[in-house]
């Protein structure tokens, strides 16, 4: 409780912590619901995954790092052994969604857009930050949806979020795990080794060359790995930091654009199957590379544009 009454933390940090507790409880609800769901083929594994995750998210601040680490390892085990499954799905039927759309029409966009709007408003306030804004936006959206339609009871929101959470499953944890891996790479001194090796090939201190290598490297690594999120942790630690940022380049421009340079790679690779191969099947296309062929030229233009932008605004 000391945290919430302490003057050392801003009101924004305290609200955020409350939001983490809510999210943790949502994850735990997902675990408990699936543990009791007879239609779920793997009740134990699913419950362990979501509950362990919920505890770390909601209460991790008050748990020693070692215990959090153990909980995370426990969380990943059912995911690795494919024991996290989806139970009974209570999706809305199309007659209902059609009827609601006829009733609400364009009004539905107000709650839909409110999250982004409040994120920006709160990002501009010192002491609060964008994530508190997201929380406020979600709250506003919930209230609006309840006003619009009496069917939207609190239970409906909880069930719908459980449905989505179960559908995205363990892969939703990928960005967080990748960020943790990045921290382990940094702690293990991986960046220094790469920096030393690459330093023998490209001249140290030439920021322009560093930017080009970083940007093109992001695109190429993303093509090989099929995932820009996986590429950026490795590339930022190994190339971005020692060859570009270390010489005073703007971490906002360089760090962020590296990600979208990676997306140029995503547009060109069958490894990113979700974006480039699954649509081919869904649209009954004849050419397996039909989507990629319509993106390659654009990806090239985007990459060159971004490299120039990074060099100019570094």
């Amino acid at each position, binding site marked *: 409780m000391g945290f919430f009454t302490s003057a050392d933390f801003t009101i924004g940090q305290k609200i955020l912590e409350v939001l983490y507790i809510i999210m943790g409880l949502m994850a735990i609800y997902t675990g408990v619901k699936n543990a009791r769901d007879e239609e779920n083929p793997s009740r134990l594994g699913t419950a362990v995954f979501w509950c362990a995750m919920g505890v770390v998210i909601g209460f991790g601040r008050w748990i020693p790092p070692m215990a959090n*680490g153990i909980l995370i390892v426990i969380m990943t085990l059912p995911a690795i052994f494919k024991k996290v499954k989806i139970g009974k799905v209570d999706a809305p039927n199309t007659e209902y969604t059609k009827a609601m759309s006829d009733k609400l029409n364009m009004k539905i966009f107000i709650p839909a857009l409110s999250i982004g709007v409040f994120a920006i408003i709160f990002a501009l306030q010192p002491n609060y930050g964008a994530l508190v804004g997201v929380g406020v936006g979600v709250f506003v959206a919930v209230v609006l949806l309840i006003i619009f339609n009496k069917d939207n009871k609190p239970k409906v929101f909880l069930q*719908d979020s459980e449905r989505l959470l179960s559908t995205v499953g363990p892969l939703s944890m990928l960005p967080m795990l990748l960020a*943790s891996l990045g921290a382990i790479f940094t702690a293990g001194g991986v960046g220094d080794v790469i920096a030393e090796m690459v330093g023998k090939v490209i001249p140290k201190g030439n920021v322009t060359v560093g930017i080009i290598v970083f940007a093109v490297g992001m695109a190429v690594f993303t093509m090989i790995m099929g995932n820009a999120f996986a590429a950026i942790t490795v590339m930022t630690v190994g190339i971005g930091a020692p060859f570009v940022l270390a010489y005073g380049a703007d971490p906002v421009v360089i760090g962020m654009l590296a990600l979208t340079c990676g997306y140029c790679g995503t547009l060109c690779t069958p490894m990113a199957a979700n974006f480039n191969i699954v649509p081919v099947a869904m649209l009954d296309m004849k050419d397996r590379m039909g989507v990629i062929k*319509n993106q390659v030229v654009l990806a090239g233009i985007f990459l060159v544009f971004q490299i120039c932008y990074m060099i100019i605004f570094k």
Partner: protein
Amino acid sequence: MEWIKLLGILIVIIGFALKKDSILIIMLAAIVTAFTGGLGVKGLLETLGSSFVANRSMVIFILIMLVTGTLERNGLKESAAKLIGKLKNASSGAVIGAYGVMRGIFAAFNVSFGGVAGFVRPIIMPMAIGAVEAKGHEPNEEHVEQLKGMASGMENVAWFFCQVLFVGGAGGLLVQSTLEPLGYKVELLDLAKVEIPIALFCVTVAIIYYYLKDKRLRKKYYGDTK
């Protein structure tokens, strides 16, 4: 023997390239790096635990899901279909372009209508093919194939480059928490701002490119010069 520290990175690259289980690859790389980098079991668990808690901001999507599913239940997708359906007398390329604009704007607010399966296939493709028929032409098979590719491409470009404009999105959060242990503190709002010109450029170029490509194909297959 310093290079042995790179084993973890090698595991990530090869693992993802071979399409092995993503979480398994990450954990394996973490364990291997903990040993080659001299962190040991204790260091591994503590770094894992503290960085996961420090990066909890990335689970904000869970909170957003509290409304996403219910928005869907209240007809979000159907209303989006009505919105784009207001477009009349447009060519196939213009339909795809208009979808790019709509998709991009909503992506910046982290709102999605179901991607290729949920929106392009049931709503955009019939509109694009309908545009050809409205001109009195029998849709050419190769033209339709290209339209499908372009619609998917527009979907991807608008989503990738506009979603980074959402303050609190996964991309910005990952960049923020990748930079932090390296000693660079950045704000989410600044990360989103810096992508505005990139998003405008990429979506505009994609719209023009697909519009011109469709125009060329229509001329080729139907002798349509307008």
